[in-house]
């Protein structure tokens, strides 16, 4: 049978970065094809070429055996290609309906087609069991729901070839499962699907064939049935991945952070956090598990000084955190940092880095006052040396401190942020979604760093929606739902089902 898609010698470079070099492989019609590789391996670039977002510098692209020139997304859409991008392609201040209609309005007058589209969407939601309100505004939706909107868009457009670029990075296990249900349905309908993910288990669970990329080239293509996580990891990273990282025995020290009666209400008096209380000790990792959007982000913002709580007691090393007498949180994160609290924010692009600053400048962010000399000036030689050192230790690639950080792949951006915060030698480390969108090699190194930090006596509060990650790192687990802590477990008691129930708010009180 003709393959649905064939890449022939596709190459693409951005400036001096060779994102794709002589890529050759085929995707069989009606199959689910996995695409894996380290951060920056060129997966998104390749798929963007297929979707007409970028144009290849060289090579041919064949659809159903025909060479096609896909110059822009319109042409790709016309050819029946749909893509769910790594970063959401949604207009935040519009409704789901408008987002779906965008590009497929069906006429100059929107009203004519609004109601039919809406009806169709509701029907699709029902058929595929997607929980989305067509009339909701995107900015009000959780990331999971936004992901569902992206899927909904593609179903509505009934693409024949569907590209999904890391759709599961922000989904919970249940959400992932239901997405896969949909993908299987698609496959039954004869559609071709390309799935990019860093979670090898997912590859094994759903794909038929896998292509592995590294450094812009294809380094392997195998049938899923005949491979294993280890083999894939080996191909991706070039070395085996350790599954169980070594860690020192659990010996918690003095209480570092004591939280009790913490409340948070927003301007509309909606309760975001209710009665949060827990203690975090030196040398332990406490993970907060939960579906995203259940107050974890707000909790982290408060603990890092980015937001003021409504009430509650927060003590750090036995002393109250300096919230009192504050009318706004302006400048507070700096005070927290000076106390020894470091923070790896969950939304690194928004909070963690200044995209148009160089990598080197980003390694200063938050510590600018520590690094200035007595004239208030920077010694850029020393800072560049520090940055080079840090890029080496944390294996940031490319190791060029003068590059705009926005040009680095997500995983490498994350490494820079983590390196920066670790380097500050904090007493308490707040870590939000440290490995979202990060490849397995990098995950391993990030996990190693966090464990080393724990072993050296730092208290770590980890927020993660990945139960795998929680299991790999945590000493104790708190589960949050609806702004409350719904349960606590020791790592020995780890039990996916029970945690899942707690995450859903079903707990015996």
């Amino acid at each position: 049978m003709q393959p649905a898609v064939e890449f022939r010698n596709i190459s693409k470079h951005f400036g001096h970065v060779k994102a794709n070099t002589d890529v050759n492989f085929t995707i069989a019609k009606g199959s689910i094809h996995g695409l894996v590789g380290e951060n920056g391996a060129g997966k998104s670039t390749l798929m963007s070429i297929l979707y007409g977002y970028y144009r290849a510098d060289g090579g041919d692209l064949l659809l159903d055996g025909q060479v096609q020139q896909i110059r822009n997304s319109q042409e790709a859409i016309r050819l029946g290609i749909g893509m769910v991008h790594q970063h959401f392609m949604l207009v935040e201040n519009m409704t789901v309906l408008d987002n779906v209609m965008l590009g497929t309005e069906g006429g100059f007058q929107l009203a004519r087609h609004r109601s039919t589209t809406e009806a169709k969407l509701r029907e699709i939601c029902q058929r595929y069991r997607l929980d989305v309100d067509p009339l909701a505004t995107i900015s009000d939706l959780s990331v999971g729901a936004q992901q569902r909107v992206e899927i909904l868009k593609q179903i509505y457009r009934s693409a024949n070839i569907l590209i999904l670029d890391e759709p599961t990075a922000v989904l919970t296990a249940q959400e992932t499962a239901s997405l896969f249900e949909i993908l299987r349905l698609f496959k039954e309908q004869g559609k071709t699907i390309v799935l990019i993910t860093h979670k090898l288990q997912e590859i094994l669970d759903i794909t038929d064939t896998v292509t592995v990329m590294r450094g812009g080239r294809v380094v392997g293509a195998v049938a899923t049935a005949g491979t294993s996580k280890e083999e894939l990891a080996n191909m991706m990273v070039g070395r085996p991945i350790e599954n169980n990282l070594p860690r020192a025995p659990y010996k918690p020290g003095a209480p570092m952070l004591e939280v009790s009666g913490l409340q948070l209400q927003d301007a509309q008096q909606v309760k975001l956090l209710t009665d949060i209380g827990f203690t975090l000790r030196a040398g332990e990792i406490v993970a907060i598990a939960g579906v995203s959007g259940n107050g974890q982000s707000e909790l982290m913002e408060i603990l890092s000084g980015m937001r003021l709580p409504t009430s509650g007691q927060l003590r750090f090393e036995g002393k109250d955190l300096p919230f009192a007498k504050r009318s706004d949180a302006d400048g507070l994160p700096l005070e927290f940092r000076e106390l020894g609290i470091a923070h790896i924010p969950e939304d690194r692009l928004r909070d963690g880095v200044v995209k148009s600053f160089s990598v080197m400048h980003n390694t200063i962010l938050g510590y600018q006052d520590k690094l200035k000399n007595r004239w208030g000036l920077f010694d850029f030689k020393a800072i560049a040396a520090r940055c080079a050192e840090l890029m080496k230790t944390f294996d940031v690639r490319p190791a060029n401190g003068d590059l705009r950080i926005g040009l680095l792949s997500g995983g490498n951006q994350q490494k820079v942020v983590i390196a920066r915060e670790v380097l500050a030698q904090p007493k308490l480390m707040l870590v939000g979604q440290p490995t979202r969108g990060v490849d397995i090699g990098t995950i391993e190194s990030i996990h190693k760093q966090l464990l080393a930090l724990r072993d050296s006596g730092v208290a770590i509060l980890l927020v993660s929606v990945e139960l795998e990650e929680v299991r790999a790192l945590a000493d104790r687990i708190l589960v949050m739902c609806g702004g409350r802590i719904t349960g606590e477990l020791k790592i020995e008691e780890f039990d996916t089902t029970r945690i899942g129930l707690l995450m859903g708010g079903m707990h015996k009180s």
Partner: protein
Amino acid sequence: MTFDDFHFASILVSTVRNAPVLIFAAMAGLFAERSGVIDIGLEGKILASAFTSAAVAFATQNPWYGVAAGVLVSVALATLQGYVSITQKGNQLVAGIAINIAMSGLTFVVAQFFFQQGGRTPDLGQARLFDVVLPGSAAVEGIPFIGWLYGHLIGGHSVLVYLAFGLVPLVHWVLYHSRFGLRLRACGENPHAADAAGVSVERQRYMAMLVAGVLCSFSGAYLAIVQSGFFLRDMSAGAGYLALTAMVFGNWRPVYTFLGCLMFGFFGAVQIQIEGVDLPGIGRIPGSLIQMVPYVVTVIVLAGLMAKSVAPKALGTPFVKSR
């Protein structure tokens, strides 16, 4: 002071007459900016179309040729601005400011070259656009209130005034209820999303600039061939910037922007009325201080009442496919 000194009727009529210059320009700016292109070049386009309209209306002795020529020139400028901002991906503020400065000079030079009157065109005389008298105005003239309402507030304006006021619901409809508007807003908020949905961002932005060019030209035409009856150097006198202000004030939404324009028109009219009048408790405010009434009011309203303004997210950033 009595209520009679404070000619409310006259203020309202004056508001209606003052507003169109701002309404046309602000609506033009709205299209450009909702598509993601900053339009600080309104002033230059107003000036250029004011000159062209007046010059052509004079030469042909037909105001409508003047209006048409103004549209052409304004659209040409908008296209240039679009070319720089969209295709060249240049700095949009620079492009706009450059156009403002260049037009301030060029209109003078050309006017001087052709008419030798110090950058002024001759009087248009009969080639002006005159006020429309609504049918039956004379009949109701005598009736208190109704006569005024029908004959002076609603009637008795130039066609362009009706166009300006009629434009507002139209713009609202186009922006929120048409395909064009949906795509426009998407391009201004998240051009990457629009692009991924198969909308050509560049094309959409060019179209927005064209619409902006057309609308903006009416502002100039109104100034020259309705309000003044000739062109005079720099006669836009900051109207483009005020229109921009009204738009920001209205949070880039047509109806609120329109209200912003009316507000400027209204306080401009109030300011005329209270000049030299003894206000109870305050006394007579010196003329030069009265001039600042509309601006002070704007600041107070902005600072006191408005929520944070939310510009289109992609405003000012050329669309480049990269991270």
